[in-house]
C-alpha cells in the first residue's frame, strides 16, 4: 500500500467515525427530559399558541425522524440550528465568533509556551537523570499537575489582580475603550491574557515535562543510543539528532490531542477569569440547558479530534520512516 492509499484509507475511516458521531450527537441530546419551550422562554404563563410558535421556530414540532433528517441536511449546509440562550442567534454564529478567537489565542499561546518550557525542562532533566535538578523538576511538575486550576486562578486574581493590581481581573479587553491603533488593542488584549495564560501554562507544564522526560528516557534505553554514545559523538548530536527525533514521535499525538483544546477551551480558567471563550460558553450552555449550542460544540470538537488525528497520522507517516505503510 502506498502513501496515498494510506492517506485515503485514514481519511475514509475518519469520515465514517464522524458520521457516527453526528448521529450519536443528535440522539444524546434528545434523551433530555422536559419541554424545551420552558428552557427557550423561561415563562410558565406562556399561552399555548405562543408555545406552538416557539416549537415551530426551533423545529421541535416535527416528528423525531423528520427532525433528524432536517438536522443532517442543515448540518451539511453548515447550519447547526438556533441557540436557546441567545434567542434567535444561529449556533454557528455563537460558536465561531469572537469566542472561538479568544479560545484560540489563549489556548494556542498557552500550549505553545507550556510545550516549549516543558520540553526543554524535560530534555534537561532526562539528560541529568537522578540529579538534584531533575528531582526538583519532577516534584515541581507533579505539584503543578495536582493544583486545582480554578483555585490557582482565584488566588492569582486576588493577589495579582486586586492587591498588586498588575493584571486585569476579568474579560479580554478593557471596557468601553476606543483604540487608536491596532497595537493598542493588541497590547490591551495581551495584558488581559496574562492571568489566564499563566494559570494555563502552569497547569500544562507538568504534563509536558513528564511526558518529554519519560519519552526521552525510553529512547535512552534503546541500543542505538548506546551506539551513539560509543561513537563518541558530541552531547549535542546525541541529544538533538539521535534522541530528540525519536522522542518527539510520541509527542506528535500529544500535540494532536492539544489541538482539540483549541476547540473546547479551558472551562476552569475561562470561568474564573470570565475569558469569553468556548470553555465558558460550554459552562453557560450547560447551566442554561442550551442544547443546540452544546450539540454544535460537540460536533466541532469531534471534527477537531478527527482532523487532528488524521493530520497526526499523516505527519507520523512522514516523520517516522518505519510506519509509512502502517
Amino acid at each position, binding site marked *: 500500500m502506498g502513501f496515498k492509499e494510506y492517506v485515503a484509507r485514514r481519511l475514509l475511516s475518519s469520515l465514517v467515525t464522524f458520521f457516527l458521531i453526528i448521529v450519536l450527537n443528535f440522539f444524546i441530546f434528545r*434523551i*433530555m427530559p422536559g419541554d424545551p419551550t420552558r428552557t427557550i422562554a423561561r415563562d410558565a404563563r406562556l399561552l399555548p399558541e405562543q408555545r406552538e410558535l416557539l416549537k415551530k421556530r426551533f423545529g421541535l414540532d416535527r416528528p423525531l425522524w423528520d427532525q433528524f433528517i432536517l438536522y443532517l441536511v442543515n448540518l451539511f449546509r453548515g447550519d447547526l440550528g438556533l441557540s436557546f440562550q441567545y434567542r434567535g442567534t444561529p449556533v454557528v454564529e455563537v460558536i465561531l465568533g469572537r469566542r472561538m478567537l479568544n479560545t484560540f489565542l489563549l489556548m494556542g499561546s498557552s500550549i505553545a509556551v507550556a510545550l516549549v518550557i516543558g520540553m526543554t525542562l524535560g530534555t534537561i532533566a532526562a539528560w541529568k537523570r537522578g540529579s538534584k535538578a531533575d528531582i526538583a523538576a519532577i516534584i515541581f511538575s507533579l505539584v503543578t499537575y495536582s493544583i486545582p*486550576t*480554578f483555585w490557582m486562578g482565584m488566588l492569582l486574581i486576588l493577589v495579582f489582580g486586586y492587591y498588586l493590581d498588575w493584571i486585569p481581573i476579568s474579560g479580554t479587553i478593557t471596557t468601553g475603550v476606543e483604540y487608536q491603533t491596532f497595537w493598542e488593542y493588541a497590547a490591551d488584549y495581551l495584558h488581559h491574557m496574562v492571568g489566564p495564560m499563566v494559570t494555563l501554562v502552569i497547569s500544562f507544564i507538568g504534563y509536558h515535562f513528564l511526558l518529554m522526560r519519560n519519552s526521552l528516557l525510553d529512547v535512552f534505553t534503546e541500543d542505538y543510543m548506546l551506539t551513539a554514545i560509543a561513537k563518541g559523538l558530541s552531547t549535542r548530536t546525541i541529544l538533538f539528532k539521535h534522541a530528540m527525533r525519536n522522542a518527539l514521535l510520541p509527542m506528535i499525538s500529544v500535540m494532536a490531542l492539544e489541538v*482539540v483544546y483549541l476547540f473546547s477551551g479551558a*472551562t476552569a480558567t475561562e470561568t474564573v477569569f470570565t475569558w469569553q471563550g468556548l470553555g465558558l460558553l460550554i*459552562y453557560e450552555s450547560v447551566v442554561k440547558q442550551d442544547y443546540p449550542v452544546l450539540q454544535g460544540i460537540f460536533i466541532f470538537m469531534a471534527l477537531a479530534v478527527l482532523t487532528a488525528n488524521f493530520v497526526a497520522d499523516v505527519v507520523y507517516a512522514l516523520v517516522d520512516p518505519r510506519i509509512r505503510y502502517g
Partner: protein
Amino acid sequence: MKGLKLRLRVLRRRVSNFWRIYRTSKLGLAGLAIILGYVALAVMAPYITPYDPFESVALPFEEPSPQHPLGTDHLGRDLLSELIYGTRVSLMIGLTASFISVMIGTTVGLIAGFFGGKVDTVLMRLTDTFIQMPQLPLMLIFVSILGKGILNIVLAISVVAWTASARIARSLTLSLKERPFVEAARAVGAGSFQILWRHIVPNVFPVIFAYANIAVVDAILSESFLSFIGFGDPRTPSWGMILYFASRSGAMSNGFWWFVIPPGLMIMTLALGFAITNYSLDQVLNPRLRRR
C-alpha cells in the same frame, strides 16, 4: 488449608519483594504516606472533628479562633470539621470514580483485544475518538444530561475517563494472547471465555490498577471543579463544595483566607499524593526505566 498457606507465603514474599524495591523510592514513600494520612483522616473523621460538620455551631463567617481553628462557614458550621469530613467525600469520589472508569475501560479493552476483528475495530474507533475528546467539557455535558449531584458527578467522571485504561488493557491483552501459556490452554481446548477469565484477566488487572492512581488524581481534580462551579450536592461537603460556598459567599472580597486556602491545599496535597505514588510506581514497575 495447605493451599491457602502456600498462597499466603507467596503473597508475603511478593509483598516483601515489592516493598524492598518500592521503599528505595523516597518520593514513593512520601506519596504513600500522604495517601495513608488522608485515609486515616477520613476514617477517624468522626472522632477527631471538634464539631458536627453538618450543623451550625456558631455564627456564620467567624474568624479563626481557638474554638474554631479555621473559622466558620456561611451557615456557621465549623470549617475544620467540614474540611476533615470533606476528606471522606473527596477520597471516596476519587476512588469510586476511578474504580468504575477502570472497570469499564478494562472490560472494553479486554473484549477488543481478545476477540479482535470487527469488535476490536469498532470499540477502538470509539475509544480513540473519546480519548481525544477534552474531558472536562464532556463531563459537563454528561452532568447536564444526567443532572447534578455527587452520584452523577461520579458517573460523569467514570463515563468520560475510561478510555485510557481501555487502551492499556487492550495492548496487554494482545501481548498476553501470544504468550505460551495461553496457546497451551487453547491447545488443551479451553474455551474463549475460560481463557479470558483464567489466564488473561488475572494478568491484566494488576497493571491496570497500578495505572488507576493517575485516574484517581484526575477524578479528584475533576470532582473539585465540578463541585466548585455548582454541580455538586450542597449538603455533601466535599472540598470543591467548600470552595464553591467560599466563592458564593465572597470569601475573597471579605478576605476570608481560611475559607479559600485550606480546601485548595487539601485537594492539591491529596492529588499530589496519588500523583507521586503513580510516578514512583511507574519508575519501579517500568523495567525499561529501571534498566538504566
